[in-house]
């Protein structure tokens, strides 16, 4: 499939439970779907050198990130029999306990939805030009690096 348009994935601030719920509800009229897979990335209160993380402030090279995401999306649609795929990533401050990434894949059967969701998350972590400043409770910070 190559007809997908480049669309934004970025949301200012956290991805809320209501937002996720609405996106799920939007799929109830799509009766060819048999399974969804959802990944939610959540900000952890890591303790680093005795200091506790209170949130992550995300920034991105948005123009490049949207092109990279478009490529990942195309690759996954080519590889798996998917009905649809939605990706949202936060920018700005996301506090601990809040969600910063939402990947939502749907297909006729479970396997393509589950596999593509996992692969999408792994590729986002590795390929998307997004940066995160881990802000501690005392307002000092360090820059997070994905493993």
């Amino acid at each position, binding site marked *: 499939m190559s007809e997908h348009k480049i669309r934004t994935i970025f949301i200012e601030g956290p991805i809320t439970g209501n937002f996720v719920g609405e996106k799920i509800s939007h799929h109830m009229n799509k009766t060819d779907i048999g399974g969804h897979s959802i990944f939610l990335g959540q900000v952890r209160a890591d303790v680093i050198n005795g200091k506790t993380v209170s949130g992550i402030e*995300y920034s991105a*090279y948005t123009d490049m990130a949207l092109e990279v995401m478009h490529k990942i999306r195309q690759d996954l649609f080519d590889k798996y029999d998917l009905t649809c795929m939605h990706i949202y990533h936060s920018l700005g401050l996301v506090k601990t306990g809040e969600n910063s990434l939402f990947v939502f894949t749907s297909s006729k059967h479970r396997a393509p939805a589950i596999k593509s969701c996992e692969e999408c*998350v792994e590729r986002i972590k590795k390929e998307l030009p997004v940066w995160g400043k881990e802000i501690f409770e005392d307002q000092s910070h360090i820059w997070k690096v994905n493993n």
Partner: protein
Amino acid sequence: MSIIKVLFFGQLGEQMGSSSLEMNDVQTTDEIIELLKNKYPILRTHTYQIALDKEIINENTPVTTGQVLALLPPYAGG
């Protein structure tokens, strides 16, 4: 004369105190990086990838006016 815009992201932007600058009269990406390292020694101690017009490049590449070079420290999305 080539004018290239250079973007710095994440900790690079923070430590350099600016998120962008322009380089005049440069011919290649290696030349730009070498000039930047001389002017901003902090770049010698950081890890980053280089993107030219939003595509990651891994070797020296000629540049022309209007192109955008970006220095991308390790990613932390997700």
